[in-house]
């Protein structure tokens, strides 16, 4: 116990100001525009406990990626795609939605805690809406009692 405390005091002081990552966001680069809103590590500037990974289309997101996020200790994982009906590649967001709902192969594993999985459909100009949704997801996952 003593050893760990000493270690955390000694470890590079200024860099460790960032909070631990609570949410992993897999975000389509054509949906909500985040390019200028991330730090060098891909954390959201407005909420550094959110780690964003940009992908070309939400259709590339495998349910496995979201399961991996939770398995490695994230409190929640969300995917963001364009508005349903407006996928740049025609059907990516629709297919991901169906995978997460268990209607299309490969499906999200039924054992995954669905409270910790979210998907948002937003256009490039809807950052304010994105922030609100992330905030409410943050409060949802933090209210889930640890099992």
């Amino acid at each position, binding site marked *: 116990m003593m050893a760990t405390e000493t270690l955390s005091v000694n470890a590079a002081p200024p860099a460790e100001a960032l909070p631990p990552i609570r949410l*992993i966001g897999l975000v389509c680069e054509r949906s909500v525009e985040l390019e200028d809103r991330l730090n060098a590590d891909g954390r959201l500037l407005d909420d550094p406990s959110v780690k964003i990974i940009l992908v070309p289309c939400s259709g590339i997101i495998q349910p496995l990626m979201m399961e991996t996020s939770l398995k490695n200790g994230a409190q929640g994982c969300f995917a963001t795609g364009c508005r349903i009906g407006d996928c740049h590649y025609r059907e990516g967001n629709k297919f991901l939605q169906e995978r997460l709902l268990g209607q299309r192969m490969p499906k999200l594993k039924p054992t995954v805690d669905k409270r910790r999985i979210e998907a948002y459909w937003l256009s*490039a*100009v809807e950052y304010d809406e994105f922030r609100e949704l992330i905030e409410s997801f943050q409060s949802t996952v933090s209210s889930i009692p640890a099992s």
Partner: protein
Amino acid sequence: MTTYVEAIQKSLVLPLEKVANKVFTQKYNPLYYHGALPNLFLWALFLTGLLLLVYYQATLSTAYASMKYITYQAPFGNAIRSIHRYAADGMMIFVLIHLFRVWFTDRYREYRIIPWISGIVLFTVLFLVGLTGYMLIWDQDAVALTNVTINLLRSFPVIGTGLAGFMLATDLSGSSLITDYTITRMLVLHLGIPLLMMFLLWWHYLRITRPVTDAPLALVLMMVGGLLLVAGAAPVVLGDMAPPDFAVVAKSIHLDGLYAWPQQLALAGWNMGVIWLMVLAVPVGLFVLPYLQKKALRGQFARVVADNCTGCSLCYNDCPYEAITMVDRNDGSRFKRLATVNPEHCANCGLCVGACAFKAIDIPRCESKDVLAEIEAALAGQSLASA
């Protein structure tokens, strides 16, 4: 580096859609069915056009009288004609929305070149269908429109006289402009080109796996309701009969701005050569457009890891551009088929990666193993901290 397309998309197209989403909801936003709605108007035009054809007589001496009967006497004649007329405008309006939207959302080039080129051809022939439709009415406006159109056709260098003769059956010697066959020829074009459009639509959909050809029922009802409202609020009328020598005074002419703008310019005294240049600039300009932008995805396409592919067809089913085929394999694998990517069709979008449960397909710009590694790296050493 922002292109003009991106700038317009973010400043105009997306804010407009945001408003439309609030009004119609995301599910019934007409801007998300910009390609399906012209089809809806096309069906309305086919149906009402068939009904109009029951009473229409395509001869010089009886065309006007039959239009008068349709407009003022035949049961529901005026309603059918009004719907036919406004559906034509509705189709052109949604085709224009379709065109501008695919342009300003950057969905018109590279792997989408076939829908774009066939779309230009469809757009051009739609223009001809509308134009001949307005001529068939054969009242004073329609005759003036026909006269101006014939003059425009004849003014075309070298082939002008022949073109007018072929399209509208004018006398090749040039003595009389309108002949007994003129209306027949218009009707042939007005009915024949839509049949050609069915073939062109097949071409338009060729590279698209699941084209959205129909809007949801609620949106269909909304559009049909709107069409009926306009047709009821402003029912079509028939203009005066043209004089027997077909010399209509140009002053009192009203033409449709969507279909007959070249003729309007001609009536306003513009130079015929300038009008032709403007008319030809539309399809030629649209054709050149995709080649003005630098290719974004040169040489990139999805790659199959043959050792991992089980031949399950999930990527083949999900590919929106028919870029994947399943081929028989005889490389000693215990699986019977192998997914194979056609680079010409591939959009490099990664939908096949999302469909694959066996790590057997990837796109170079975003490999699934890299995404998984990034997740693991970001969360490394803090799994207990979040609990």
